[in-house]
């Protein structure tokens, strides 16, 4: 098998072929049953979603192909791609889709699964941001932009901090950069609520 990976010396090349055994139709069925992901199988592959998406021009698979991949059960491709992370959750696709598929919610669902199984692209800043955000909000109940950006940069690309200095200064000067760590009074209560069912 390994030997057959003819392009091992060229990691950027992708094989454009699928064996049917790589498909996981059960997974596809299971995704289609998650709240928000209904109707996947009624997709026309019309491309309206990709056409309205402001970010599809940067995506490795535009939204239509994500739906296609999920539907065919190609789980690794659907979960390992950058597309789902580039999705800015603008819902343009969801309100245009002629089959009323809520593509944005499908994207969310895939993001969650990708994080859970650590299938997301490494060193890609968006999942890092999401996790940092999650951490801050779970700890303190509110997010604070300064600390969030700082933590994200440290965990993905510390050099980025240099480029942020200019923007940071402009915000600071206009009183829009607060160094205060926001926190709610009843953090314990919030955490109890969240923990009430955590892990189900």
């Amino acid at each position: 098998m390994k030997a057959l990976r003819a392009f091992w010396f060229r990691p950027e090349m992708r094989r454009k072929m699928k064996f049917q055994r790589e498909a996981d139709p059960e997974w596809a069925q299971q995704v289609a049953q998650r709240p928000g992901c209904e109707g996947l199988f009624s997709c026309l592959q019309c491309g309206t979603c990709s056409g309205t998406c402001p970010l599809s021009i940067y995506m490795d698979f535009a939204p239509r192909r994500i739906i296609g991949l999920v539907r065919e059960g190609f789980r690794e491709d659907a979960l390992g791609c950058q597309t789902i992370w580039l999705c800015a959750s603008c819902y343009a696709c969801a309100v245009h889709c002629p089959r009323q598929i809520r593509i944005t919610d499908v994207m969310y669902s895939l993001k969650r699964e990708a994080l859970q199984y650590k299938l997301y692209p490494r060193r890609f800043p968006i999942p890092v941001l999401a996790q940092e955000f999650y951490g801050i909000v779970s700890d303190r109940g509110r997010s604070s932009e300064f600390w969030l950006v700082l933590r994200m940069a440290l965990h993905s690309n510390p050099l980025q901090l240099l480029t942020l200095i200019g923007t940071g200064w402009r915000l600071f000067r206009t009183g829009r950069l607060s160094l205060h760590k926001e926190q709610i009074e009843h953090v314990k209560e919030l955490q109890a609520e969240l923990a009430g069912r955590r892990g189900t």
Partner: protein
Amino acid sequence: MRTGVYVCHCGTNIAGTIDVHALIGYAGSLPGVALAREYKYMCSDPGQELIRQDICDYKLDRVVVAACSPHLHEKTFRQAVEQAGLNPFYCHMVNLREHDSWVHADKPAATEKAMDLVRAAVRRVKWHVPLERRQVPVHAEVLVVGGGIAGIDAALTLANAGKHVYLVEREPTIGGHMAQFDKTFPTLDCAACILTPKMTAVKAHRNITLWTYSEVRQVEGYVGNYSVTVRRKPRYVIEKLCVGCLECIQACVYKQAKVPDPFNLGLSKRKPVYIPFPQAVPQVVAIDPETCIEFKSGKCKKTCVEVCAERNAIDFKQQAEIQTIQVGAIILATGFDVFDGARIPYYGYGLYPNVYTALEIERLVNASGPTGGEVVLRDGRKPASVGIVHCVGSRDLHTNRYCSRVCCMYSLKLAHLIKEKTGADVYNFYIDIRAPGKAFEEFYNRVAEEGVVFVRGKAADVYPAGNGDGRLIVQAEDTLLGMIRKIPVDMVVLATGLEPRADANDVRRLFNIGCSGDGFFLERHPKLAPVNTFADGIFLAGCCQGPKDIPDTVAQSGAAAAQALALIDAGVVELEPNTAHVLEDACSGCKTCLPLCPYSAISFVEEKKARINEVLCKGCGTCVAACPSGSIRQNLFEDEEIFEEIDGLLASAAVGGGPVRIQGDL
């Protein structure tokens, strides 16, 4: 009582879900049942023969057939019973398929339900009494509503067969949508060349009474004997006197045409006195009271009247005329409406002047259209590139779910015509090209070879180009290339779909027929009775039943005409005996029933009693249920029959040992 019970397998339709063997075992054990049999296809000849033979051999006096819906085979089995010398109404059907096997998956439970249903029927049928069908004569005239290609063709077929036809058209001319086209796919023959001879033939035919600018107001009666009221709107021109010289239009005090012309979808203007298009039939002008100065102020010089001089055809005082006609059959051919492109805001129809609907382009390419057949933009320029957006208002849950069936093909036609006339680059944005008809695929190939571009992807957005050159960008994912494309065009054509007429629901009520989920008129059976409706004697033709192209429309209008012919040529119709009747001794004359009857079949007679005209009664049962003194009865729905049936049905739901007893007045 010697009842025979027959259970049909319907292949595996019934036997797959219901244990037929157990069912007949059970049925055979019921009191009064002489024998119970199963058979693979009861409706087949051997199946029917089985029943006939048993009636003779076993002296059966009642028959229960447990099979499919009575809609499909009640006639068949009643006939079989009749052939064996029994009154046909001694036969009763149980709908095991639609009511049981098709809607359940659990075999034991479905079998149990089947036993309940059969038991109910066995108990009911013993109360059946012999009934007679009544025969009534049929009017030989036919009403056709709508003068598009469907109505025209049906009217001509019937008229050629020697039947008198009333053709009622709402607009001042017949022709329908087809009259607006230049060419027709896939052969590209000229629409006018094939349509206008038929239109003139309608006018000239001695068997056709053509009423344009008219509407059906009221429909009464029943199959073979409809009484229809038609309102002829005033066109302020006496049809008999107008010779169609059009001099009045020339002479109108309006030197310039002022009013948007609906026939050209507002792409040109017309005067208050007008004729919709040069080949209109009848060749009679009409005056629009909304815009005519004489109507608005009464102070017009009336130059039109002057020039009409001795013909004296113009009559500002003309009133609407009411006509009542008797017909045996009715054909509805009211056609379709075009989807309103403005309902999809992101395509910019109504916002950007160079976004058109396909029907507007049909007018532009038409030699008798607003531009004399030139395809030009609103500012007169020739487009150098054109984008045709498919599926506008079709295949979309936000608008219409169904496929409009003709848009792919007319888009190909328009692509070809635009390219031919302007040399423009033409891009089709499509989801699927649906070209399944005769010579359609060949036409698609031809258009593709001519260099028309096909981008597989639904257009997602139309917006003005960023560089300010006045072009529009059509944005779509080219799903075959896997790329987003932004294609600049001068003109966008929206292939808008076909919708039910805005007033389809009113028309449906007027004629007492149904609509399917999409809003088009509902046929009696999608495969086997595609031009019939659930109202006997009313038939459908053309796009009022669903989107279709001209070949299919004409095929359907032929079928509708043949159905109408078969009906009236028989001379008589048989009426089902399931009608209601008043027990005159018991009737207290309270008149409760009178206003309730939807068919006005009840009258109040001198003896101060209600009386039901059995010919008008459709057996809906409304009056039977409403009568406070219980003095209206209905054949096949006698109290004993219904209560026995209910008791039989609920017998297995016995509570506390005994069967559930339903008390007298339920």
